[in-house]
């Protein structure tokens, strides 16, 4: 029997307001084996931790039960506390009486009763705990960054800077991501390309960085420190090592009618293409959906004009296997499709555009060479209406429930740039709220209103009617209490942003959790914002939530710092809660081996002492504790019950069941 100490935390009033903490401590004191029981305002505070340590010494405790917040919160804190007092950290059990008791119940009597039962279960379990020691596993000193936008580039550069190898996997033919499509950045109005392209070149030239462009991650196995990743290098039908990026093929290709994805379909490109002049790697790619050679075997012009002999129509997808210690997800975002909001006539008029399309129409490298012209007739627009929050902040049935965060600022930027370049335009911005939390952000927005004369209207557009070359905009002006009817030339929609579609299958491969909007979940929303709850998986940029560029870069560097911290270690301390077979009972049947996702189980033939001084040779299971992650699948697959899980043993769980049901 253990000598158990029980520590009931008030968590200020978080627990104490609904749970009679004194009574809990009092009742639990009578449980078998409990030699000390107390309550305190904040167990996790310095004073609280010291109290636990003193009690361990004073009462010679061999087990500690803490009734407090969720073990996901402070289990580690209290384990360390006890370890410092000389107790094995795995002799600590937490009863979750905050998240799973005080916060969900209102009646004090009920909550107190439940807290006692949860405490009893923890005491019952701790009696069966055994001291555990962690093993270690080696760390592969290489990082993988998935996504080559500004987030991925920044993370990779920082990791490489610390001296570690890092690979970037980018699904497009070039790295750079969304930022390459942006014209100017807020609130400084400096040119996006001017600050991004040098970084792209840095990444390409850095010896520690390897870029897999036009590639995707196709499978991930392993665990922190030891991931095994298969990268699919999609066939681009051009030999990257030979292509010089001269671009001759992209001029000669006879297939001219391919919608140019880089310009969001606002103009056309050839079937063989380099997305834009500063692409990295600057290598041509053949679009197999449009190439007549690949489709019908007739043409071959690019191959004829290529002096480097880089064209290879027979290229196949290639698969590369690589090992990594850490993986950074930087899959970014996309504007949503606007089919659902056709009151704005997006699919009925080419002059209704998204903000990202508007970026291209303003960009010197865009389809109009930087002169703002209407897509329908190439005329200069005189009245432009911006609509905010299209698909953001919606009821779940109507769109995205979250604020897309960047739209207020880029719309202010667009409005300001329009007025600056074309003072003869009338610019209206319809807003619900203007959200400008950020350094120099509100000042920027005020400048748009005060200096540039942008009409900010609190209200929303209800209907856009394309007619006779105009867009008749019907909107509300809530402050003026009137309905506005504006004949506009262009309407620009601030479409909500959503995580890239590749994120969901990737999350499944990585076993990293996601929220209901498909943004990756962070390990802790405040204290661990760049880590996924899955060890060794880090989050960079908008894959975790909507972000502007400075925030993305900050988070990218933070993720890099976490990766560097991990790769700096030679060994990782393993989870000691691993599976362990009782060899005397093992049948050697291989059931456990079949369900182990990590291949941690092997078999050996071992001699055992039999009756009458005989020896018996038996096949028995062995678990590699450095590889075992402690899921417990094997323990249930085992017919004889020989396999058990340390820290969550059959007896421990049943003791908890008994304590709860008694």
């Amino acid at each position, binding site marked *: 029997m253990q000598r158990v100490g029980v520590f009931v935390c008030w968590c200020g009033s978080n627990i104490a307001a609904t749970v009679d903490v004194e009574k809990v401590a009092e009742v639990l004191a009578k449980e078998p084996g409990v030699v000390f029981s107390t309550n305190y305002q904040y167990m996790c505070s310095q004073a609280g931790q010291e109290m636990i340590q003193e009690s361990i010494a004073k009462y010679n405790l061999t087990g500690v039960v803490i009734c407090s917040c*969720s*073990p*996901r919160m402070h289990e580690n804190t209290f384990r360390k506390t006890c370890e410092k007092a000389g107790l094995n950290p795995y002799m600590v059990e937490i009863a*979750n009486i*905050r*998240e*799973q*008791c005080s*916060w*969900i*119940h*209102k*009646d004090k009597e*009920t*909550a107190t*009763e*439940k807290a006692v*039962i*949860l405490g009893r*279960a923890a005491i019952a379990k701790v009696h069966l705990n055994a001291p555990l020691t962690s093993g270690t596993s080696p760390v592969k000193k290489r990082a993988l960054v998935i996504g080559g936008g500004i987030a991925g580039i920044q993370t990779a550069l920082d990791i490489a800077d610390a001296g570690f190898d890092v690979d970037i996997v980018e699904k497009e033919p070039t790295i750079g991501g969304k930022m390459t499509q942006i014209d100017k950045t807020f609130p400084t109005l400096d040119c996006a390309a001017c600050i991004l392209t040098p970084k792209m070149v840095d990444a390409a030239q850095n010896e520690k960085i390897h870029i897999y462009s036009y590639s995707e991650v196709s499978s991930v196995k392993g665990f922190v420190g030891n991931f095994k990743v298969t990268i699919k290098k999609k066939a681009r039908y051009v030999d990257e090592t030979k292509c010089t990026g001269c671009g001759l093929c992209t001029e000669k290709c006879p297939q001219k009618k391919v919608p140019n994805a880089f310009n969001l379909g606002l103009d056309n490109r050839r079937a063989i293409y380099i997305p834009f002049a500063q692409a990295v790697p600057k290598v041509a790619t053949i679009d197999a959906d449009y190439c007549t050679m690949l489709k019908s075997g007739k043409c071959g012009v690019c191959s004829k004009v290529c002096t480097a002999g880089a064209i290879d129509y027979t290229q196949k997808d290639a698969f590369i296997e690589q090992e990594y210690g850490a993986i950074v997800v930087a899959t970014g975002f996309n504007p949503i499709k606007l089919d659902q909001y056709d009151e704005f006539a997006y699919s009925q008029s080419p002059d209704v555009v998204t903000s990202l399309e508007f970026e291209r129409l303003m960009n010197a490298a865009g389809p109009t060479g930087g002169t703002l012209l209407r897509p329908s007739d190439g005329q200069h627009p005189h009245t432009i209406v911006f609509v905010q929050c299209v698909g953001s902040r919606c009821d779940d049935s109507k769109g995205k429930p979250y604020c897309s965060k960047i739209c207020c600022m880029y719309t202010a930027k667009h409005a300001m740039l329009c007025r600056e370049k074309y003072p003869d335009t009338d610019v209206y911005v319809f807003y619900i709220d203007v959200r400008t939390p950020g350094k120099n952000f509100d000042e920027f927005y005020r400048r748009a209103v005060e200096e540039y004369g942008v009409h900010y209207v609190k209200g929303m557009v209800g209907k856009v009617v394309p007619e006779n070359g105009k867009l008749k905009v019907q909107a509300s002006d809530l402050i003026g209490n009137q309905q506005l009817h504006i004949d506009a030339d262009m309407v620009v929609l601030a479409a909500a942003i959503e995580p890239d579609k590749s994120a969901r299958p990737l*999350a*499944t491969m990585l*076993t990293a*959790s*996601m*929220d*209901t909007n498909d943004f990756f*979940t962070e390990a802790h929303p405040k204290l661990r914002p760049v880590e996924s*709850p*899955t060890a060794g998986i880090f989050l960079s940029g908008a894959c975790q939530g909507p972000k502007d560029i400075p925030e993305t870069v900050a988070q990218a560097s933070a993720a890099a710092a976490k990766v560097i911290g991990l790769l700096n270690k030679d060994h990782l301390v393993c989870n000691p*809660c691993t599976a362990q077979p009782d060899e005397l009972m093992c049948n050697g049947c291989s059931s456990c081996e079949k*369900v182990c*996702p990590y291949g941690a189980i092997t078999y050996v033939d071992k001699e055992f002492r039999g009756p009458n001084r005989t020896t018996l040779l038996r096949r028995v299971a062995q678990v590699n504790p450095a590889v075992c*992650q*402690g*899921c*417990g*699948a094997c*323990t*249930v*697959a085992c017919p004889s019950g020989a396999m058990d*899980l340390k820290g*969550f043993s*059959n007896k421990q*769980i*049943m003791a*908890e*069941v*008994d304590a*709860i*049901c*008694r």
Partner: protein
Amino acid sequence: MPVNEEFKPTIVAFCCNWCSYAGADLSGTNRLQYPANVKIIRIPCSCRLNPMFVLRAFQRGADGVILCGCHPGDCHYTTGNYYARRRMTLLFSMLDFLGIERERTRVEWVSAAEGAKFAATMNDFSATIHKLGPNRRLEDLRCRKD
């Protein structure tokens, strides 16, 4: 049989550490209420749930047992919940075959982000068990020969 005026069912909820236990925490963080007779036992993965634990809970007087784990495809250990899904399907089927009310057992997939779903699930399950009343059949299967 004495009428138990205030039947307070005992419900054991086994929650995987990565999704559902976190989902339960989230429903606490959001102050979403569910009945106090639901008690959660943390297991590393839904695949750790040995059918014996379910039977043990019933043996010791539980009126309902529910397993919550990551959504299929999202298991922290990649495949654990797929095994759990088969095991529980067959276990529940066997209990049903023995004539035990099939509503007493349930599996729900609750992600770490689904605090509201967790609370709603527990409310619903608890209401179901409340309607069923105390777990008599499993008790009667004890067929005391007295």
